């Protein structure tokens, strides 16, 4: 068999985090009653007039800047004509001739080191409504709440060679866009969607093969599976002397396979023309400067700075900066006086463990850096021990309680009354002669049981290391007096 190379380009749709739709004041909130977020504009009523949401332009330009694009200083919207019930206007307002951003790139880490994936363009457009197909009753239900929700479509160059590249590219985009706060980029919820354009060619040749486009990919897993499947299908076809037909294929998640959409459904002749309802956009230097000045520090810069400023391992830096929100909590807690490594330990340990448990992601963390710093301070000053600290942390993680108040109210402070501790320890020694004997006969581990008993009697409110030391002291005294 010949050697083949896979060539992949991606069209990534990202739902922008605006409060309202792209051309009207309807809410973009997810999960509203069907069709409750609709008006004459987003349902394409004759005579209605779309007006561009300024925030959409700001987000699109911010993403373009962060992905090294040229910003188109004079741009326009076009109508893309197609007939389907998800699209009440019979056209989608999009950008063909003068997209807002062009000629950018992002860097991905791949086997051979860092590599650039080119971005051909980014354009602004509106989302379509949602169709629910009822197979039993042979009908379709339409909800237009999503109609007119703002999207940017990021079109890459055909610079990727396999599923690993594609995943790395998508993760990079997602990270950048989340840092900008332009979208939450959740594949499963559809706020980030990827269409994969794939072709194969004999290794060593430069010409591109005929490509197919795959739609309906809603997880990294289905993207990987779809790429592998489509590559094999195309190579098989060519090996048998066949040809690849340019077509749109739909990925069937359940069947782990793709199939061609009917040619009628796939008939593409969009007859784009400039939208006469929307006036052109002319971007001034001031506008660009305004967006530039608001750009947050992105992850690459942040990682570099952390290496210089904080004494924590590279591994910690990588994990903490994966989420801008988590990184901000880290920085703020350190600024409040907490030791960087201590903060990082709480974030990488208990925080990630609990996030995994609740199925949330780091952007959803609700506790404040102030409270985290207070908790660290309480443990540093030995007001609470580490077991209690974990319990307090869990409450803080769920409800952002103030650890100082919480510890006070629940009476979780370690008992500082050495007299009380001493008498309990003496009781424990007196009532556990077997363990005492074991210890004194050289079984050092036996002390663990005595520590446990003392901690239990203290209701956990003692410092285990201190208890250990005290018990050893008392046992030494006992053995000497014997």
């Amino acid at each position, binding site marked *: 068999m010949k050697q083949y190379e896979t060539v992949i380009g991606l069209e990534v749709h990202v739902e922008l985090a*605006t*409060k*309202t739709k792209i051309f*009207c*004041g*309807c*809410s973009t909130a997810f999960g509203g*009653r*069907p*069709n*409750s*977020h*609709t*008006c*004459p504009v987003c*349902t394409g*009523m004759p005579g209605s007039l779309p*007006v*561009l*949401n*300024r*925030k959409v*332009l700001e987000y699109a330009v911010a993403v373009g800047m962060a992905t090294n694009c040229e910003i188109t200083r004079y741009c*326009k919207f076009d109508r893309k*004509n*197609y*007939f*389907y*019930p998800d699209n009440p206007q019979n056209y989608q307002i999009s950008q063909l001739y003068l997209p807002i951003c062009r000629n950018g790139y992002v860097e991905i880490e791949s086997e051979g080191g860092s590599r650039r994936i080119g971005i051909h363009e980014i354009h602004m457009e509106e989302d379509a409504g949602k*169709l*629910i*197909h*009822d*197979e039993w009753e*042979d*009908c*379709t*239900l*339409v*909800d*237009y709440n999503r109609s007119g929700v703002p999207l940017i479509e990021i079109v890459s160059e055909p610079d990727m060679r396999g599923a690993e590249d594609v995943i790395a590219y998508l993760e990079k985009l997602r990270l950048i866009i989340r840092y900008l706060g332009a979208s939450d980029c959740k594949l499963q919820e559809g706020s980030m969607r990827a269409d994969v354009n794939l072709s194969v060619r004999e290794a060593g040749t430069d010409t591109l093969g005929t490509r197919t486009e795959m739609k309906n990919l809603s997880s990294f897993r289905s993207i990987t599976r779809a790429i592998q499947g489509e590559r094999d299908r195309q190579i098989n076809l060519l090996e048998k002397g066949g040809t690849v037909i340019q077509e749109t294929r739909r990925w069937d998640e359940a069947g782990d396979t793709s199939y061609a959409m*009917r040619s*009628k459904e796939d*008939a593409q*002749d969009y007859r784009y023309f*400039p939208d*006469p309802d929307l*006036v*052109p*956009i*002319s971007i001034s230097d001031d506008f660009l400067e305004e967006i530039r000045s608001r750009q947050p520090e992105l992850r690459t810069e942040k990682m570099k700075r952390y290496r210089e400023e904080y004494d924590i391992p590279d591994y910690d830096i990588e994990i903490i900066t994966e989420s801008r929100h988590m990184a901000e909590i880290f920085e703020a807690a350190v600024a409040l006086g907490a030791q960087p490594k201590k903060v990082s330990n709480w974030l990488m340990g208990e925080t990630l463990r609990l996030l995994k448990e609740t199925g949330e992601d780091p952007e959803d963390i609700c506790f404040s850096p102030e409270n985290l710093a207070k908790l660290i301070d309480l443990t540093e000053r030995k007001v609470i021990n580490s077991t209690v600290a974990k319990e307090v942390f869990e409450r803080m993680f769920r409800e952002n309680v103030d650890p100082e108040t919480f510890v006070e109210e629940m009476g979780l402070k370690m008992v500082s009354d050495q007299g009380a501790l001493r008498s309990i320890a003496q009781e424990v020694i007196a009532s556990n002669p077997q363990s005492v004997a074991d210890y004194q006969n050289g079984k050092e581990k036996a002390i663990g049981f005595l520590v446990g008993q003392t901690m239990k009697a203290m209701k956990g409110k003692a410092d285990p290391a201190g208890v250990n030391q005290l018990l050893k002291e008392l046992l030494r005294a006992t053995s000497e007096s014997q």
Partner: protein
Amino acid sequence: MGIAMADNITNETIDYVSILAKLELTGEEREGARRDMCRMLEYIDKMSELDTEGVEPMSHVFPLQNVFREDEVTGGDGSGDTLKNAPGERENMFLVPRTFD
């Protein structure tokens, strides 16, 4: 001038456009549509007679640019009015023939 566009409306063009527009036309409707389209394109042909050498292409009549709205919710629940246009309705959604197989 080049070939008149109106002459290009063949029966094949009508069939193709009806696929794009998801329309099923009877023979009579097809002929009507062909005549209508020819008439529209005759008008375009008429405009093509004008000499536009050196004239900047224009997509908008008014010399306006940068009209924006702020990102503030203004609409309430619009489903009542929206659904007045539904051919059928179920669970607050438009009910249409199945569009997918």
